[in-house]
């Protein structure tokens, strides 16, 4: 399978704590994207990092990318109960617009 791997598979934290999710992918990429999915809903785009970038911030989100290790991490700071969802990384190669998704991390934030 081309699908990437994410760890942990599941993460439970208290409100106010930080959450870190890791992603490994298999192909050479043009960019890597992170998406969030609430139960029973479609995916929502969070942040995109290009292959020539190492770190990117958006609000409470921080993404890092290490192309030599084919890995990325997503950090959510000061988590809230509303952050409870599944989070997926998705790799986009150079010669196609399709996304190859990871297996996802299920995040539970307790109030």
């Amino acid at each position, binding site marked *: 399978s081309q*699908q*990437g791997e*994410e760890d942990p598979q599941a993460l439970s934290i208290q409100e106010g704590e930080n959450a870190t999710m890791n992603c490994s992918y298999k192909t050479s990429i*043009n*960019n890597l*994207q992170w*998406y969030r999915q609430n139960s*029973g*809903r*479609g*995916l*929502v*785009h969070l942040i*995109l990092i290009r292959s020539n970038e190492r770190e990117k911030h958006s609000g409470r989100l921080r993404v890092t990318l290490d192309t030599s290790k084919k890995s990325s991490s997503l950090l959510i700071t000061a988590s809230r109960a509303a952050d409870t969802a599944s989070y*997926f990384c*998705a790799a*986009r190669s150079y010669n*196609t*617009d*399709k*996304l*190859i*998704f*990871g*297996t*996802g991390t299920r995040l539970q934030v307790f109030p």
Partner: protein
Amino acid sequence: GAGVSQTPSNKVTEKGKYVELRCDPISGHTALYWYRQSLGQGPEFLIYFQGTGAADDSGLPNDRFFAVRPEGSVSTLKIQRTERGDSAVYLCASSLGGGQPQHFGDGTRLSIL
């Protein structure tokens, strides 16, 4: 509406039947994508369109699956001779293309009995 719309939201049918799933993308989005998501897994790419043409159909599992986008807007995913293994949530997304973020619908949950 402002978002990607998928119909029906749920579809239950018997093994061997034919099904059509519809996707209405965001107005002005030239690229349209179909993915399939099994329980507890990430979405799996099926096919994407740039305009009316299929730019990459490498994810279609076999020739029972076919998709069209005749006018470059609405798309239909067609599955012939359905099998129980086809049961999944079928997600549609659209974008401006060129690697831009994809906007997803809420999916069609397909159950083959």
